[in-house]
């Protein structure tokens, strides 16, 4: 049978038509073999655009359709559905990308038009060899994996668990809560962070549908949407979570105190500890590095005093496998390491501290019980807040960390509220975009805070006059006054930026997520799919995608949950039928393909002497197809004939 091909060249408004002569491309297409209809249209993806295609299928009896428009990632599904509506198998449709990879990359109309013709020509020659295929449908496992128990992960977990679905929440720290648990107040409302966070943490801990796997991490993630297997490493706490009631006896009796990571080393904790009193789960962990039993073989005091016999020094690291249908990655951020900016003297001057250290100082249950004090215990008389440390700086991170302006204002407010200190804010630009944020800035302008516009050049203790003696001197240009200022202060707070987690690359590998240039996880589409990733069934939420404040992180957690729930409610997922098939008559039984398959989908059938592919295991990479010396393997929708047709069309 001679095929009847219809070709549609989309203008995409002016997105394509501005650089590609769509009429000329349509005219060229009409001259290609077996093309019976070729039209150009303003918006092919619109309802009338799709109707036009459907009508042509019905009236002209088209047997193949090519649409030249945007990337297949954008509208392939749209057009496949349209041709299917008109009764044509959706795989008899071929998309040609003349927008992302043609009109948008060129300013030269002649060159772009020539390129569009080449791309359309290749699609037309290929579609001739497209075959009708059926999509594979596989059941959707309703269980969900969430990685990261910060506010984004907590929100997602609660939303999903409340709908009756099972959630495995994996957190690498001994407690959930993330950074928010360490903050004192939140901007701009000055809500107490603990008051709004801890009830949510408790809900997570008590929820019948959430299995909280703290002090754990995911080491392997395999499978595909609907059917993933996650391998989770459970690190030993040396305390039995089932038996422990969280009474805290062990912590009280433990004779060894070490610096607390939760308090940024400003306070102490015991060798058996909970990071903070409201930790969820409330089960403590034994810090093996310091515990006297593990280091010296003596003590076991916690074991003696535990009323429930929950201490277990024999606990070992163990691995569990869980089956899930989807995953949300909410692994958060790391703070910029302030010691990298040598000229600010962090680590050298004791009273130069980071914003997170300030949060712990001002926190009511922090190491100073909320008192803002210098290292010598005295209250500061003057404080400088330095914005953009590690952000908006080509030496470190080009991007704006988004939250620092607002939390710096909050810091200024808290210092003014709790002390009589004079406060100086050194900022580059004040970024207060958000509900109530600009108003909060205005409020601070009235709170007797001195704002100085310009990046801080240096923080030094070298005094030039008596008023600078014993002080930290902040040297900065005031760009509004065009003068260089030297401001002597007692305390400097560095508003450090947010960075991708140091292990983001490993996590990206495990979940096969791409990263953007700045190291954060890459969303599927920056505008329209902000919590999706290129991998079906794998979502991202919160600051692992880029710096975000609490409301945005919560919104993303909820958005990711909604995406997951919508997937689960479909009950089935459709898989591209691009699996490989073996022609048994041509297979010589050489077994080359068997070792190449990353999914062990190919086995050898001894009696018949040829290889066999298990369709359900094949993911459609096509590695075996390219390797088969007898050409016995074909990949559906990527057959040798289809791909060669494209090559020939391009080279003709």
């Amino acid at each position, binding site marked *: 049978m001679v095929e009847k091909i219809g070709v549609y060249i989309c203008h995409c408004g002016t997105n394509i038509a501005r650089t590609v002569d769509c009429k000329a491309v349509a005219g060229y297409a009409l001259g290609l073999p077996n093309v019976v209809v070729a039209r150009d249209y303003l918006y092919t993806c619109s309802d009338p655009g799709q109707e036009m295609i459907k009508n042509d299928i019905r009236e002209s009896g088209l047997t193949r359709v090519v649409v030249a428009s945007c990337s297949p*990632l954008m509208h392939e599904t749209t057009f496949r559905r349209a041709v299917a509506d008109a009764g044509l198998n959706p795989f008899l449709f071929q998309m040609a990308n003349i927008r992302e990879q043609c009109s948008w990359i060129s300013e030269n109309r002649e060159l772009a038009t020539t390129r569009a013709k080449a791309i359309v020509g290749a699609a037309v020659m290929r579609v001739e060899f497209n075959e009708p295929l059926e999509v594979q449908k596989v059941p959707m496992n309703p269980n969900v994996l969430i990685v990261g128990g910060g506010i984004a992960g907590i929100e997602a977990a609660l939303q999903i668990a409340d709908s009756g679905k099972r959630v495995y929440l994996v957190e690498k720290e001994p407690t959930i809560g993330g950074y928010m648990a360490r903050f004192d107040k939140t901007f701009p409302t000055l809500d107490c962070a603990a008051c709004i966070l801890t009830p949510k943490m408790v809900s997570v801990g008590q929820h019948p549908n959430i299995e909280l796997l703290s002090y754990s991490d995911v080491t392997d993630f395999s499978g595909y949407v609907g059917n993933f297997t996650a391998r989770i490493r459970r690190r030993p706490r040396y305390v039995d979570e089932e038996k422990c009631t969280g009474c805290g006896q062990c912590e009280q009796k433990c004779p060894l105190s070490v610096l607390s990571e939760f308090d940024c080393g400003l306070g102490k904790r015991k060798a058996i500890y909970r990071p903070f009193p409201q930790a969820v789960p409330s089960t403590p962990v034994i810090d093996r590095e310091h515990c006297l039993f593990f280091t010296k073989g003596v003590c076991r005091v916690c074991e003696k005093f535990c009323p429930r016999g929950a201490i277990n020094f024999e606990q070992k690291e163990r691995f569990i496998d869980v089956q899930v249908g989807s995953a949300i990655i909410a692994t958060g951020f790391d703070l910029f390491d302030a010691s990298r900016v040598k000229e600010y003297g962090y680590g050298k001057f004791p009273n130069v501290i980071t914003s997170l250290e300030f949060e712990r100082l001002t926190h009511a249950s922090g190491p100073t019980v909320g008192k803002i004090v210098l290292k010598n215990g005295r209250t500061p008389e003057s404080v400088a807040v330095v914005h953009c440390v590690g952000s908006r700086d080509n030496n470190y991170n080009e991007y704006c960390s988004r939250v620092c302006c607002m939390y710096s204002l909050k810091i200024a407010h808290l210092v003014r509220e709790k002390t009589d200190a004079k406060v100086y804010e050194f900022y580059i630009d004040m970024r207060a975009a958000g509900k109530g944020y600009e108003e909060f800035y205005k409020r601070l302008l009235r709170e007797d805070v001195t704002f100085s516009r310009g990046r801080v050049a240096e923080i030094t203790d070298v005094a030039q006059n008596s008023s600078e003696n014993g002080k930290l001197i902040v040297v900065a240009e005031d760009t509004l006054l065009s003068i260089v200022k030297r401001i002597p202060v007692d305390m400097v707070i560095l508003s450090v930026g947010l960075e991708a987690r140091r292990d983001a690359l490993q996590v990206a590998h495990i979940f096969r997520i791409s*990263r953007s240039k700045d190291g954060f996880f*890459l969303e599927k589409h920056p505008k329209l799919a902000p919590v999706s990733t290129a991998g079906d069934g794998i979502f991202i939420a919160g600051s692992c995608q880029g710096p975000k404040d609490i409301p945005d992180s919560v919104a993303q957690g909820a958005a990711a949950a909604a995406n997951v729930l919508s997937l689960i409610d479909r009950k089935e997922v459709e898989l591209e039928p691009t699996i490989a098939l073996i022609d048994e008559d041509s297979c010589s039984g050489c077994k080359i393909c068997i070792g*190449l398959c990353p999914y062990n989908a190919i086995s050898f059938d001894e009696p018949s002497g040829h290889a066999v592919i298990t369709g359900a295991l094949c993911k459609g990479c096509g590695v075996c197809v390219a*390797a088969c010396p007898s050409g016995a393997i074909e*990949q559906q929708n990527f057959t040798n004939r289809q791909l060669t047709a494209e090559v020939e069309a*391009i080279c003709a």
Partner: protein
Amino acid sequence: MVIGLSTRFEPKIVGFLCRWCAYTGADLAGTSRIKYPPNVTPIRVNCSGRVDPTFVLKALASGADGVLIAGCHPGDCHYTSGNVKTIRRFKLLQRMLNQFGVEKERVRLEWVSASEGERYARIVESMTKEIRSLGPLEWKTKVEA
């Protein structure tokens, strides 16, 4: 072949792009409106491991002046290790092309992640420039003869 107003040689290059990384990266170059030469015409495959070396020879024999194979960075392959198989295959292919007298600049294997639109554009740019200076391949007269 002559494209555009200039009479300089414009190489014809076939690009095999894996759908997960390189093709998405090339899309990103467009979305970011990065301009690059139009010489590489893309063919989308699921994995760079799908690229049968025969396709490369077919392209060169049919009139292409160069072939680009672009996939996910090693370790990032959507199919775990398809690109590793491409590396091995590519080494063998390079030796064979060398024996045919095809300059190594004409066939390139590159890694482009989904976020590397800029990188994709620069690869296309440098490859086009290199092959332009080499001149047409002329397989029929140079290689087959």
